[in-house]
């Protein structure tokens, strides 16, 4: 077919039929498939977008830090479920309202109980979270609730929730006096394995305690039994025992950041798992947690007539060596009658810690006002000499503790069974006795007349001094003269005895004479021996003398 009628044909062929076609825009209908197709595609896009669009919700946060309209996503388990479409201040300018367009698949998130929070990088003692958001920017985390009720206005959390909905595990309530260093997210340990964390904490309504909510992840939540004991595992537990120094911590993180630990008590106990949201007491340390239950606390009062230096609040109160309580107050009193300053010590005791003994005593004493009659329980014990004593627990520091002990031969003390709190009679402690004895000794020592002793000694010494002076002045010069004369004598004696002295020579010659005399005497006796008659007759004329009897001596001796 032709586009147009041949315009100005000069030779009309009237015999041919004139076709009626003029402008045939619709003749080539196939080409119109293209715009139809394009329209279909566009339409499908629109429909798709419309189907994809989920509910629009608005969340309020304290700050829009890190949030960006058109860019920040909303994620649940790291799956994108929506996008921030707008940011605006709330009417009172207190908060930021974040408009979020949720995906169609996420319309379940526009329900009551869904929680939203901003995931930003957080660095805490327990670790680092949200590092990926350092680079990618913050996103809004979501956690769906159980409710089906629709809701389109939400208040965002400022902190990520510690536990996501539907996470396996159980939460429990812990009650304690103070929070310590615990915080949301603090770990919960079981046998030093982290099994949960602290989810929240609130001050009790009366302000007298703190309730913590912890969450223990499944399947470890089954280890929390009815008898499980929880304790604050913060800090370092140093104990010095017979085995030496022991340092006990849960983990390094808990030393700084705190944590909660739990365990079953030793011995027989109820093994059945605790119910969801069961209440437990959070003890200060493991030893307290593991000790038998304390029972209700009771108050006692003691008056000491002595100084209690070293006794502090929280000092232990021991009954026959068992710790049954602690000192809660120390007050100075004035006794006008005796003009003394007694110290009133208040203590809280847990009689149940005495175990079987308590059971028996309590049975004996009966109850008063729905509680065990403590006065009636203590009366016979006091009668038998039970007294409170302040004793030295540590010789180095002088710390005192209160000991309830039976004092032999204790003086009778009045005891009022009816008073509340009961007043326990006291006795001076052993250390005080020791002090008394020491004082005794000191007095005795003081009684020694050191003054007169010193005086006498002084006089004696003066005498001695004088004597010595005398000796020096008179005796010594004489002694020197004596010594000099003695020396002189000895000198002359020496002279006399020297080899060339006349005495010596005389002595020598005398001795020579004496020898010669002896020889002649011997000759005489010899001659007499041979010639005894000579005594009478006299000596004959001399025969020629025998040659042999001539000794070659220089001194010829003549008898």
């Amino acid at each position, binding site marked *: *077919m*032709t*586009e*147009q009628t*041949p*315009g*100005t*044909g*000069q030779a009309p062929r009237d015999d041919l039929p004139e076709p009626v076609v003029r*402008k*045939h*825009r*619709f*003749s*080539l209908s196939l*080409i*119109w498939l*293209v*715009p139809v*197709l*394009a*329209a279909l*595609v*566009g339409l499908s*896009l629109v429909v798709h977008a419309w189907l994809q669009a989920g509910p629009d919700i608005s969340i309020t946060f304290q700050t829009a830090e890190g949030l960006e309209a058109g*860019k920040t996503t909303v994620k649940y388990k790291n799956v994108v479920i929506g996008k921030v479409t707008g940011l605006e201040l709330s009417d009172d300018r207190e908060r930021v309202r974040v408009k979020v367009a949720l995906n169609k698949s996420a319309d379940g998130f526009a329900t009551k109980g869904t929680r939203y929070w901003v995931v930003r990088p957080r660095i805490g003692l327990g670790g680092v979270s949200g590092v*990926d958001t350092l*680079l*990618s*920017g913050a996103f809004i985390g979501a956690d769906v609730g159980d409710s089906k009720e629709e809701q389109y206005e939400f208040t965002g959390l400022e902190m990520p929730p510690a536990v996501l909905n539907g996470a396996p595990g159980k939460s429990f309530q812990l009650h304690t006096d103070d929070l310590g260093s615990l915080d949301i997210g603090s770990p919960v340990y079981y046998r030093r394995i982290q099994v949960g964390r602290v989810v929240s904490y609130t001050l009790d309504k009366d302000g007298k305690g703190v309730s913590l909510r912890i969450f223990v992840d499944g399947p470890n939540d089954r280890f929390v039994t009815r008898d499980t004991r929880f304790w604050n595992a913060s800090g370092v537990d140093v104990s010095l025992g017979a085995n030496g120094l022991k340092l006990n911590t849960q983990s390094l993180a808990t030393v700084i950041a705190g944590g909660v630990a739990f365990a079953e008590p030793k011995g027989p106990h109820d093994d059945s798992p605790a119910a969801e949201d069961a209440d437990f007491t959070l003890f200060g340390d493991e030893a307290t947690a593991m000790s038998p239950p304390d029972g209700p606390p009771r108050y006692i009062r003691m008056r000491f007539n002595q100084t209690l230096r070293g006794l502090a609040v929280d000092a232990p109160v021991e009954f026959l060596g068992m710790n049954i309580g602690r000192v809660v107050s120390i007050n100075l009193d004035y006794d006008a009658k005796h003009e003394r300053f007694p110290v009133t010590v208040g203590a809280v005791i847990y009689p149940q810690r005495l175990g079987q003994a308590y059971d028996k005593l309590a049975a004996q004493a009966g109850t008063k006002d729905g509680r065990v009659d403590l006065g009636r329980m203590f009366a016979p014990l006091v009668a038998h000499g039970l007294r409170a004593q302040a004793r030295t627990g540590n010789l180095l520091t002088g710390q005192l503790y209160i000991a309830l002990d039976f004092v032999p031969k204790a003086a009778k003390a009045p005891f009022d069974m009816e008073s509340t709190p009961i007043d326990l009679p006291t006795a001076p402690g052993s250390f005080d006795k020791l002090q008394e004895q020491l004082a005794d000794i000191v007095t005795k020592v003081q009684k020694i007349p050191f003054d007169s002793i010193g005086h006498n000694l002084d006089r004696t010494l003066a005498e001695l001094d004088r004597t010595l002076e005398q000796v020096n002045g008179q005796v010594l010069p004489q002694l020197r003269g004596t010594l000099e004369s003695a020396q002189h004598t000895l000198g002359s004696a020496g002279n006399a005895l020297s080899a060339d002295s006349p005495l010596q020579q005389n002595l020598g010659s005398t001795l020579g004479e004496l020898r010669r005399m002896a020889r002649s005497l011997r000759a005489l006796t010899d001659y007499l021996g041979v010639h005894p008659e000579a005594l009478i007759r006299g000596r004959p004329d001399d025969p020629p003398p025998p040659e042999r009897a001539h000794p070659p001596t220089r001194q010829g001796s003549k008898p």
Partner: protein
Amino acid sequence: MSAAPRAHELGIIGCHVCGLVCREPAGDDAACPRCGAALHRRKQGSLGRTWALLIAAFILYIPANVLPIMRTMSLGDADDNTIISGVVELWVKGSPSLAVIVFTASIVVPMTKFLVLGTLLVTTQRDSDWALRQRAKLYRAVEVIGYWSMLDVFVVALLTALVRFGFFSQVEPLPGVVFFGLTVILTMFASMSFDPRLMWDGPDHD
């Protein structure tokens, strides 16, 4: 007028492909005796085709602008950009010249084509003799600039291929670019299927 006789009036027809002039055939199914191409006086169904393609191009131009065309990821930070947001971003981030280029290539050129082709079609259909020479110039201009509007598609294709540094930096094409490419192709077909000689057919026969 100083009307030169038209081929049709002389009973001859030229081949569009090889330019051989031969006698005008009586029927429709004539073919060029030299190259074998179909012989017709004017492009077949030119106005209809052009209209159809132009409308299709315009329809596709909507998602091309609404949908993001490119996702740039750097250090885990993903950023989706539509054509307009890309232009704005370029402008804001201190490259106004680049922004102008991209804006011209992806917004001005296609829009001009739509307008020009639309005007040409309407005036041609109404056999208007208004500003014929200018219209002819416009048509030639559209033909020339047609290719340049593919700039965006090339940019996305190049970046996608080049910027592949994994976590640090990455560029991904998004559906918008497909629609944009289709728009450009369709407008080019549209301007191709338009037969400018039709402009001269109408007013000349007085």
